[in-house]
């Protein structure tokens, strides 16, 4: 199980979605899919078209910059960060 930490802008969009939760997944992409199964639409908030992480969304796995295909180990910490930007 990976430990996923989400930015505060996401839970208000999906009733019941916590800031922190555990997910059984082998990659970042798979973790997002698992969360999308439980909270439909979740994937669209992080991934745009063409298929890629949105420009102001960053993902770190065990504090290293990660992509959708980054592998997850049991106990991995996944941080989803919405960039501090805008006005």
């Amino acid at each position, binding site marked *: 199980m990976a430990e996923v930490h989400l930015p505060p802008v996401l839970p208000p*969009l999906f009733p019941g979605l916590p800031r922190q939760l555990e997910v059984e997944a082998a990659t970042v992409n798979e973790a997002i899919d698992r969360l999308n199964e439980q909270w*439909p*639409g979740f994937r*669209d908030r*992080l991934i*745009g*078209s*063409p298929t890629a992480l*949105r420009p*102001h969304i960053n993902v770190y796995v065990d504090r290293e910059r990660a992509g959708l295909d980054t592998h997850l180990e049991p106990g991995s910490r996944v941080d989803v960060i919405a960039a501090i930007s805008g006005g």
Partner: protein
Amino acid sequence: MSKSVLLVGTRKGLFVLESGDRRDWSVRGPYCESWPVYQAVLDGDSGTIYAAAASEWLGSAIWRSADLGETWEHSSEGLGYPDEEGGLKLSKVSSVMPAHGRLLVGAESAGLFQSTDGGETFSLVTTFEGQEGREAWNDPAQQPPGHLGLSAIIPHPEERDRFWTIVQGFSLFETTDGGQTWEPRNKGLRRDWPADYEEIGFCVHKVAPAADFERFYQQNHVGMHRSDDAGKTWTEITEGLPTEFGFAAATHPHDRDSFYVIPLDPGHGRTMPDGRLAVWRTRDAGSSWQQLGQGLPEKDAYVGVLREGMAIDDHDQPGLYFGTSTGQLFGSIDEGETWSQFGGLFPGITSVTVATVE
């Protein structure tokens, strides 16, 4: 007893204003998690509010509320371009229009989506494949800042598959087959720049039909125009206005000859000429214009109004409402003769629509 509902889309969410007399307004919001809202409309058939919103961080979605804003859901399922669309990127949903039991959504890059389940899921109708000029309007080098792509959808009130769209900076289009094929509707419009195509390359800002849907008015980048054949041909009616440039416009719901527009300085400032806030009205289909401004700031008002920033209601004596790109709302309930500011101070206003609810 009926009430008026004003939907005010802003750079930081949607606000819902309600009034029983169009004088005192209650304000609720911000909704849509303060995402930038490009257009919001109340579907008169279902009573649902739909808002086209796009977060810089979290992408685009159509938000919907079946209880006038008390509770909200959002969806972007299907709102994206498949890879075979040549790498088109969907940066924002910029227009939304319910009509005939279907929800139409315009996007940037320019494309049209529809929903037949009340905004839960969407499917791509067209990206104007094969249309003359398509490569140019999808070229980022030719797009202005804040490009909206498909900036407006204008449904025919009776014919389900007939509607008009605006591709920003390029054309007004009409379809009569639900968006499968399109005809440019720019004949007679002025353009003061070279163009690669005879029928494409016109900067259409706003099109406002009269109730008969034969008379159309258009605020263009260069000039005000009128059509008496549903957009097939246009005649310029700028003479008498202080500038040829502007965005917001509204047609009187009961008088096809009466039309309102807010002229702006045509340079990159795009604010009120001479700092004097004014709405201009014609009552003779553009043969003459009157400046309306009693109650509006007469000096030092360097504000602008965006293309969806003005609305007119359907009362016997219609109310007019407009919001500025710096967040002030102004209204008139005597057809523009007198005005007052109301509702509070908002983030920059992108869209104002009004509906009467029983």
